[in-house]
């Protein structure tokens, strides 16, 4: 177990694993996401109340869900950075923060597009929307803080602390719709209950969530590899790798 943990800390070892994983992640992600989106947008039944406009759920929910998952993963990586000083954990945080930023923005944007016809407004300062906006700023802050500090090690620690401080926002996003009165509706999916929508709607939704997860995995591997190559550019194995690629 500990040996595996230490191996995981080796950028070279991760680089190899990532190279082998990436084609599968990409293929699976594209396949599932396409299936989910096409099924959801073209074949799923329309909603009795909202008609076709509810279909934005097939993009809104996956982006919002994974934007929050990424932040939780970043928080775990931040603990690893602070406690074990593992370089790879910092590489992960640095590599995925922009992905999280983009997904959070997409979730807010699709939500606004849906909100206009459904609620009658693009934006309202309710607890769910506001806490999600804070998540967007947190991602922005993480990226900015990382860029602002030149020394790699100090940047890693500062960013890890910021990520940890921000993680309290995640349960607030999740439970905002239950703790307070909000315009945003409560979750349709709960772990303990059957989803309050028919299978024709939730299966494509589940497919797009899984697909986006896999695509995120692919993107994370790709961005981490790039970051590793940059950081380890003076090492023997990177030189060998680059030379082999050229020859």
């Amino acid at each position: 177990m500990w040996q595996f943990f230490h191996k995981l800390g080796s950028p070279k070892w991760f680089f190899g694993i990532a190279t082998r994983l990436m084609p599968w992640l990409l293929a699976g992600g594209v396949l599932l996401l396409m299936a989910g989106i096409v099924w959801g947008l073209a074949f799923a039944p329309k909603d009795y109340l909202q008609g076709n406009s509810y279909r934005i759920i097939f993009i809104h929910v996956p982006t919002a869900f994974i934007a929050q998952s990424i932040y939780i993963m970043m928080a775990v990586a931040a603990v690893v950075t602070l406690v074990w000083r593992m370089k790879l954990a910092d590489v992960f945080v640095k590599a995925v923060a922009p992905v999280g930023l983009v997904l959070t923005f997409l979730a807010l944007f699709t939500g606004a597009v849906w909100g206009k016809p459904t609620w009658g407004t693009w934006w309202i300062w309710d607890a769910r929307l506001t806490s999600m906006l804070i998540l967007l700023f947190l991602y922005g802050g993480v990226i900015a803080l990382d860029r602002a500090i030149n020394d790699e090690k100090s940047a890693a620690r500062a960013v890890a602390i910021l990520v940890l401080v921000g993680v309290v926002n995640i349960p607030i996003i999740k439970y905002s719709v239950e703790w307070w009165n909000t315009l945003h509706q409560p979750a349709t999916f709960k772990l303990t209950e059957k989803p309050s929508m028919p299978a024709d709607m939730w299966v494509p939704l589940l497919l797009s969530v899984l697909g986006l997860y896999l695509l995120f995995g692919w993107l994370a591997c790709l961005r981490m590899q790039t970051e590793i190559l940059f950081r380890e550019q003076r090492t023997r194995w990177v030189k060998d790798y680059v030379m082999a690629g050229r020859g």
Partner: protein
Amino acid sequence: MHPIRKKRLTIVLFLLVGLGIAVALTTYALRQNINLFYDPSQISAGEAPVDVRIRAGGMVEEGSVVRDPDSLTIEFRVTDFNASVPVEYTGILPDLFAEGQGVVAMGRLNNNGRFVADQVLAKHDENYMPPEVADALEKAAKGQNKASENATTNTVSY
């Protein structure tokens, strides 16, 4: 585990627990500000300020909607099945506005306990279903015929 790492882990855990408590207390203290709207029970209990711009939210009571034929003015009651508040509004309503649906209205409470709204937003619930299922459910609720009841028992098993 290495003692230094153990120490760092403890510090990290303390940081998280401390932050969690601080945020929990802050949001608890600010809960009335974070709540988007007052519900009808709060308004009828006099908890909502009079003549201040606030939001009121709840369900549009069945059979309470009265439209003025000559203008866009509409009157309805907002209920939480415990208390209800009369609302009047002039303007365009969102498509989802209907009796039995959730709404959030922004406006002022006047001295007579009437809520004069200048904006009405529809609140959607977490339930989604195809139109046929909704029809079948409605028919079953009215107990019109056995065929549709069978249809709903099928759809409930989703």
